[in-house]
């Protein structure tokens, strides 16, 4: 009898990618869920002896889902599939009862090894037949979904870099991907209070298949905490300056440091998935201590329609949030989509 398995991920692309990576000869009945709530319903219907579970999802995320599974003692084996590659995330999910943790993008051999290790499947390891039967669609929604998933994996790697550097857990959101008009950027940014003073730097990036700008935005109150976190020793070394100038300077340093790490790692993550080399420019300051609308309006001067990827990182243990925005001209969508699929197929 076919084994009922459930794949739970908010991205349709990711659901299909997981389904495709399952071994060919594994006799399974696959069903899908878009978030934890749907997953719980399906587990209760007996549709999920094995559950492949994403962590960052809307409605109910992977952590909450596992909490419910444990509380109600639901009969399912959980394998977490996530772009959050922080050691702390892995530790947390194992503690919460997951069998194992597998990174996105899925490595078929690793998946096979896990299935084998837990005695779930021990047939042939090959997995290329489902490849053909499960196709990615070609609609705008599908393309945006691929973009969201690609950003998701890249932002996970970037978050992990920052976490390692600061030795702190970085909470990852669901990236928000939308097509907007360039004069709507300030409106489209959901996570920053419109009245807060913000600072931002922008860096351009170019490759054959993708070009755009990466913007790091900081709320000013958070910039202070972050500069204290990044430069605990510098507060004493520059006493000759007046306090305000020093504070401003340290905040700019913090902004640049985070931009270097996050943008660098995120672009590297995207470049790797597209198998391209990305050139980046020297960052340029968009504005310091100004209102969000002012900062955006004074700087945006081109591109009618664009793709906005908004990623709101937060570090709850130190109460710091900041935003990474990727702004891309809309023609990047098709180029990146095609390239992404062709890299996956190889």
């Amino acid at each position, binding site marked *: 009898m076919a084994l009922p398995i459930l794949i739970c991920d908010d991205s349709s692309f990711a659901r299909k990618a997981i389904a495709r990576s399952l071994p060919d000869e594994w006799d399974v009945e696959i069903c899908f869920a878009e978030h934890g709530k749907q997953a719980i319903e399906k587990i209760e219907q007996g549709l999920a002896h094995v559950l492949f579970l994403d962590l960052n999802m809307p409605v109910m995320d992977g952590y909450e889902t596992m909490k419910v599974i444990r509380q109600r003692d639901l009969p399912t084996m959980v394998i977490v599939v996530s772009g959050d590659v922080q050691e702390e995330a892995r530790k947390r999910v194992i503690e919460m009862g997951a069998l194992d943790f597998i990174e996105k993008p899925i490595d078929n051999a690793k998946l096979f090894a896990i299935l084998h290790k837990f005695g779930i499947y021990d047939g042939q390891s090959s997995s290329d037949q489902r490849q053909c039967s499960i196709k990615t669609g070609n609609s705008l929604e599908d393309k945006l979904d691929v973009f969201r998933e690609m950003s998701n994996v890249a932002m996970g790697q970037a978050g992990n870099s920052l976490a390692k550097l600061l030795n702190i857990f970085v909470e990852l959101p669901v990236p928000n991907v939308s097509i907007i008009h360039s004069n709507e950027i300030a409106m489209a940014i959901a996570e920053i209070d419109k009245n807060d003073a913000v600072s931002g730097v922008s860096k351009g990036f170019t490759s054959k298949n993708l070009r755009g700008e990466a913007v790091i935005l900081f709320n000013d109150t958070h910039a202070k905490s972050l500069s204290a976190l990044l430069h605990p020793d510098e507060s004493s*070394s520059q006493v000759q300056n007046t306090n305000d100038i020093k504070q401003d300077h340290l905040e700019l340093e913090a902004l*640049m440091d985070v931009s270097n790490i996050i943008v*660098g790692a995120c672009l*590297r993550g995207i470049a790797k998935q597209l198998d391209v080399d990305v050139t980046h420019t020297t*960052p340029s*300051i968009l504005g310091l201590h100004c209102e969000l609308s002012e900062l955006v309006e004074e700087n945006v001067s081109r591109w009618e329609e664009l793709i906005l990827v908004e990623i709101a990182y937060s570090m709850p243990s130190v109460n710091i949030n900041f935003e990474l925005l990727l702004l891309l001209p809309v023609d990047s969508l098709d180029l990146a989509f095609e390239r992404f699929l062709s890299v996956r197929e190889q």
Partner: protein
Amino acid sequence: MPMSNKISESTEWVNALLASLEMGIVIVNNNYEVEVWNQFMENHSKIDAQEISGQCLFKVFPDIEENWLKNKCKPVFALATPVFMIWEQRKYLFQFEASRPVTSDADFMYQNITITPLLNESGEVDKLCFLVYDATDQALNKLRVDRLNKQLKTISRVDGLTGLYNRRYWQERFDLEYKLSVRSKSCNTLMMLDIDHFKKVNDTYGHQAGDAVIRHIADTIKAATRETDVCGRYGGEEFAILLPDTEAKNAVTVAERIRKLVQATEVDYEGQIIKYTCSLGIAQNTNEYTKPSQWIEIADQALYKAKETGRNKVVVL
């Protein structure tokens, strides 16, 4: 052998290329010992490549803060990610003279720095490459624009004769402070001041002497008020002063100080000794006002009363 010939040819070609670049290229190993130092670096530092080769960067350039730079390079080693530093952050990494010694007014070369990882065969970062860009022109232009914008802002806000805020900007600040005080329920006091018989000063001594008197009272106001007080030239010889976090009775002390100082001093305009006095009206904000103009109206009435009842005095309403 043809093979090694090709290699040495290509090395020379690369060296020629490195030399011709209008940017500094420095490669260091993980002990920060210099391995590549291109022509740009030689010329600007006056240190030859052979001389610096194998030396620790921090020994040759003691001005570079070792801990700071190592901190910046940490992600380059650990994450193989490039790190960018811009002149706004630090003016320069290497203290060089400006490239155009005559026509550029910088004392040094502003620099943007990119630090990129160089990977060895096993994929680890064991060397760093510093790219040093001359950003002097860009920096000077930006600084010039910032300076001009600042000047423009000041010009648009400040009254040319007195250096106090002009009426438009004073009103803007007053409206803002009013809104803040409504929200925070703080106690603020508004003071209106007018020079007594100013027309007579003008008629007797001339308009330029009148200007000197106006400048004199503006200086007196500046001297008697705090930095946080909002002082503006409201009309020809009328001044408005907003005292945040101040009750009327404390504002009276300030008003009396101004009145007495004015009464006690003489203005010497080209040998003509001018004596004058001023009147002041004071009104504290109350929650009865629904808009800022009502508050100004009450302070104006206080000033009018001071004039009506004999001048050279302070009246509170």
